């Protein structure tokens, strides 16, 4: 790869963004007929389809919990989703790990105790990938759950943070992600100011991590506005409401 190509020139990133600017983001809720809830997110060149089924009967039955609903979460990348070679279908090790940490997000946020002995199934299918797919997927899945009418403490969302050429940046695209020196996907609840998903690699100082958390919460606010609009459009039709709803 062309490692010499500078990714940040005169305080601007390769695609013209500033350090904290997010790529164009749109979400459409209720895009699937069969699923109880669904959403399609397009974020930069990412396209991720999320769906929710449930609460429904647990299968296999021995997995059921008498106190709460269990949550299953699938994250997978389509074999044609990257600009590189044909991928293998189904979740690989990376995808299984992402499915697990995404499941923990929804175990926290869904009011599972209202639905004992049931399961809620969440799928995130990455159809086109361009960096930050897990954050995009969980952001979409959160809208899909709301679309399914599943009660939650909050609508959750996030952004990925990273360090590129020594600078902290938000919402890395695939190229920045590959060439970057650190990677921090973050999912937060703005209502409680809590961090629900936090993974990290690269070598970071405490100051850098603190700054990334600030940037993450700030980015999440912009993402949340798009989620809320998607749900308003779904139930009231577009353009029928003013900004206050």
């Amino acid at each position: 790869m062309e490692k010499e190509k500078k990714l940040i020139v005169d305080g601007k990133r390769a695609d013209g963004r500033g350090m904290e600017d997010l790529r164009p983001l749109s979400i459409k809720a209720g895009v699937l007929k069969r699923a109880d809830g669904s959403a399609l997110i397009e974020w930069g060149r990412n396209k991720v389809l999320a769906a929710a089924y449930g609460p429904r009967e647990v299968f296999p039955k021995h997995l059921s919990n008498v106190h709460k609903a269990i949550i299953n979460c699938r994250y997978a990348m389509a074999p044609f989703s990257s600009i590189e070679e044909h991928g293998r279908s189904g979740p690989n090790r990376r995808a299984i790990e992402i499915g697990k940490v995404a499941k923990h997000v929804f175990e926290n946020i869904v009011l599972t105790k209202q639905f004992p002995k049931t399961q809620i199934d969440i799928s995130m299918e990455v159809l086109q990938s361009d960096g930050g797919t897990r954050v995009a997927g969980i952001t979409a899945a959160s809208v899909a759950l709301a679309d399914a009418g599943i009660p939650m403490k909050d609508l959750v969302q996030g952004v990925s943070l990273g360090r590129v050429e020594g600078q902290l940046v938000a919402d890395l695209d695939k190229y920045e992600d590959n060439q970057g020196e650190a990677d921090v996907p973050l999912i937060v609840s703005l209502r409680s100011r809590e961090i629900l998903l936090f993974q990290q690699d690269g070598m970071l100082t405490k100051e850098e991590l603190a700054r990334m958390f600030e940037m993450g919460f700030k980015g999440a606010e912009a993402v949340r506005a798009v989620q809320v609009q998607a749900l308003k459009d779904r139930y009231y039709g577009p353009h029928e409401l003013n900004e206050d709803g």
Partner: protein
Amino acid sequence: MAREADIVDEIRAEYVKDVLKNGQRVDGRELLAYRPFSVQKGVFPNAEGSALAKLGDTQVAAGIKFDILEPFADRPTEGVFTVQCEFLPLAHPTFEAGPPNENSIELARIVDRGIRSGECVDVEKFFIEEGKVLGLFVDLYVLDHCGNLSDCASLAAMAALTDAKIPKVEEAKIVRQEYSGALPLQRLVLSSTFEKINGTVLLDADGDEDAASEGRLVLAVSDDGFLCASQKSKRAAFHAEEILALFDLAKDKTAPLFRAIKA
């Protein structure tokens, strides 16, 4: 129907929570203290590096093997580094034989990320000739699961790496049991794992605390003070300030572990 072992775990977890309400732990430890630990290197001399780590009653073995591999297409001159983890059926009543599940995959990937991010192993030194590089495999064998597998596994992996020797390569083949020298490490990385139970954060959960835990934060730090890998796991959330404070603690708490490995 839940299994018998799960029900016993649930009852014991309730006891852990009860005792913790008074800020105490069942085994009498401070909230942020490690159990006694030990590392033994070179326990499997057929491997190119090995170690057995014990943390309280938890035991994880690590073995290192080198093989000659084809490099990844986008990194034709770099060697390959892989961490894998097996939860052996003998290690816990609920562990089953079979392909890796989400827990063992998560554990292997956390240990892998820490070592990879910390650039502990210089994979650029693993180039042999065009189309051939050395691949380094770290296999983590969980022998006895009595809580905090992540720290015990990272201790075992790092100890095995400090024990590892690079095999002699002749005519692009490995000569087994002959070595060209010790594996150089650019820095060491170990993790500290914190668990959240009813809002209380504690370090180094034992088996019952592990079952009672609602939130987990694994922080892998380098011996020169960088955060190299993190993972929040389980359902409970953490605040940003909490994570930052635990990063400082992880640096303190891993210091004796680093010393044990360097000894």
